[in-house]
């Protein structure tokens, strides 16, 4: 890995990455969390339509291979700085679906007790940063977490996600610049889902790819098929190993499609039909399930059971979140300052 050159390297392959001799338990676990992510988000779309939620709902349909695939390449003590398409990474880390639902409902039991809401539900006890809306404001914070690990001589790394739209902001440029000159153990993951709200790629960047930008920062950049969980996992694992070895940050671009609107209120009628058609054949959850079934890691009945368990889990989560209390405004001025 030390000999690896800086620049872009395409990992996009015509067929899904093969399972090879990987640990079947890890494969089944990745599958389980991808299925759970989809089930929880489908449930939450229904909750949005049914009026259970406060505002809009931000989902990560077709981001499951990225969020679970990348998070599964980390250790639990590594830091994670996700965005609103990364429910799968949260769940992988131990976030409970009912907590996420509670966040979108402003419940007292949400990770912020209803003070913040919707997609702002990170938990530091799970080494997950709870970001504000100003994405990629999580990027500079991610460099700080990586800086602290290096400062203390620990071999922890920090994985941060952003979208294609985020790459235009100063936070992105300044974080990649600082991380590379300081050789920080960061993995910067761009989830290229074709649209920044309504803005298409052609109005966001004139670069041949986002991964290509890595060369300018003096770090490796790699573009992967973001619907291929194992391609994502492998690319992340390689970047994690590099960071852990003290060789500095990496940039990964995972290409997928935002299959819902920016949020559920957005009909996304500006999206090219051809993109929906192309990506409807590339459902990352289905693709990975088929890979496991073909490889004999999972049988059809077991896969069905995983889906049914996930559905029931999401139903139970909604029930709990609905029953949970709303917060008491009596202490709203507490905690503006820490003791």
């Amino acid at each position, binding site marked *: 890995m030390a000999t690896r050159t800086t620049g872009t390297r395409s990992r996009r392959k015509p067929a899904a990455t093969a399972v090879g001799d990987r640990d079947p338990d890890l494969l089944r676990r990745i599958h389980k969390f991808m299925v759970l992510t989809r089930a929880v988000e489908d449930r939450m779309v229904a909750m949005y339509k049914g009026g259970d939620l406060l505002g809009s709902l931000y989902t990560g349909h077709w981001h499951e291979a990225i969020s679970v695939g990348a998070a599964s390449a980390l250790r639990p003590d590594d830091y994670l700085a996700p965005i609103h398409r990364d429910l799968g990474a949260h769940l992988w880390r131990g976030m409970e679906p009912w907590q996420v639902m509670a966040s979108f409902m402003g419940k007292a039991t949400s990770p*912020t007790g209803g003070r913040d809401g919707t997609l702002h539900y990170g938990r530091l006890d799970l080494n997950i940063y709870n970001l504000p809306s100003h994405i990629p404001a999580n990027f*500079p*914070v991610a460099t700080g977490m990586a800086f602290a690990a290096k400062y203390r001589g620990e071999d922890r790394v920090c994985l941060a996600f952003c979208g294609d739209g985020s790459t235009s902001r*100063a936070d992105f440029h300044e974080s990649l610049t600082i991380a590379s000159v300081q050789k920080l153990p960061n993995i910067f993951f761009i989830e290229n889902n074709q649209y920044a709200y309504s803005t298409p790629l052609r109005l966001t960047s004139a670069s041949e790819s986002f991964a290509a930008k890595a060369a300018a920062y003096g770090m490796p950049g790699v573009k992967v098929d973001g619907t291929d969980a194992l391609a994502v996992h492998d690319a992340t694992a390689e970047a994690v190993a590099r960071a852990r070895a003290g060789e500095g940050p990496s940039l990964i671009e995972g290409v997928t499609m935002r299959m819902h609107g920016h949020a559920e209120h957005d009909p996304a009628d500006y999206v090219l039909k051809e993109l929906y058609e192309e990506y409807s054949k590339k459902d990352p959850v289905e693709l990975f399930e088929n890979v496991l079934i073909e490889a004999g890691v999972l049988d059809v009945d077991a896969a069905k059971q995983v889906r049914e368990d996930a559905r029931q889990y999401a139903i139970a989560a909604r029930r709990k979140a609905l029953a949970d209390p709303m917060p008491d405004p009596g202490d709203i001025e507490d905690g503006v*300052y820490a*003791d």
Partner: protein
Amino acid sequence: MPTDSGTATYLEAVGLALDAEMDRDPDVFIIGEDVGQFGGAFKVTKGFLDKFGPRRVVDTPIAETGFTGLAAGAALVGLRPVVEFQFADFISCAFDPIINVLARHHWRTGDPMPVTMRAPFGGRLRAGPTHSQSVESYFAHVPGLKIVMPGTPEDAAGLLISSIRDNNPTLYLENKYLYRRLKAKGPISLDPIPLGVAKVVREGRDVTLVTYSAGVHQGLEIAEELDKDGISVEVVDVRTLVPLDVETIVNSVKKTSRAVVLHEAAKRLGYGAEIAATIQEEAFWHLDQPVVRIAALNTPTPTSPPLEDAVIPQPAQIAETLRKVARA
């Protein structure tokens, strides 16, 4: 770093306090532009790189958003970063992480955010509109930030130590005009001075002057002068804007029944507006006269000396105002 703290300037007092905290706590580090091999634009961190090494004295690219956010992330996982902004004017480049990341994180999540942000601010150095600004009011409006503005070398040391030990994001504004013009009256104490405690720096009977930073020295000089005319001015140095020691201000106003507020930031929505409003809410029936604000004109800070002097409060104007309020 000065060898004899008895002669420490305001600038050296800042350096002494930072040095002492870095000695005391291995989690404290300094990060910013030119703070390492160059020793900082004003030389506050001169010698720090040799003593503490590049791990704890971190030179950054010109990237205020980046290194302020980095400090937030490091603080979240237990370090105590001290960020140096080369000039307070450049803090606007880090507005987003300060407002949206640092200031509200604890209230949102309960996680402490111990980041100290040092920034040299203010005018009188003929540095013009983008090197002379007083930025305190932008940030005083934001819940979750503390704002510290020492006026003496002694306070500069003790308040910086408290800022670094505080579990909140703290904006520590150093008056760069005072850096080499003020010397400590004795050895610098490295004991912390609590945030949120104002100080009556001169007792008086006729009028209270509420001020901070360079205003304290202007106020004390003018108070001596007015004393010769039989006007007794009490000078209150608020020292920290957030939290504000309302009690000390109000007690002084109740005693003198007249109040003038002085700062070198622009008048409109300057911090003096908050102090004046607080005085009328808490001590209205004790007042013999309306509270008067002395502040800079509502213009950018000009470069050329006659222009800058026309914008920033000058001694004659301050003396005249105090005289008028005291005798009216």
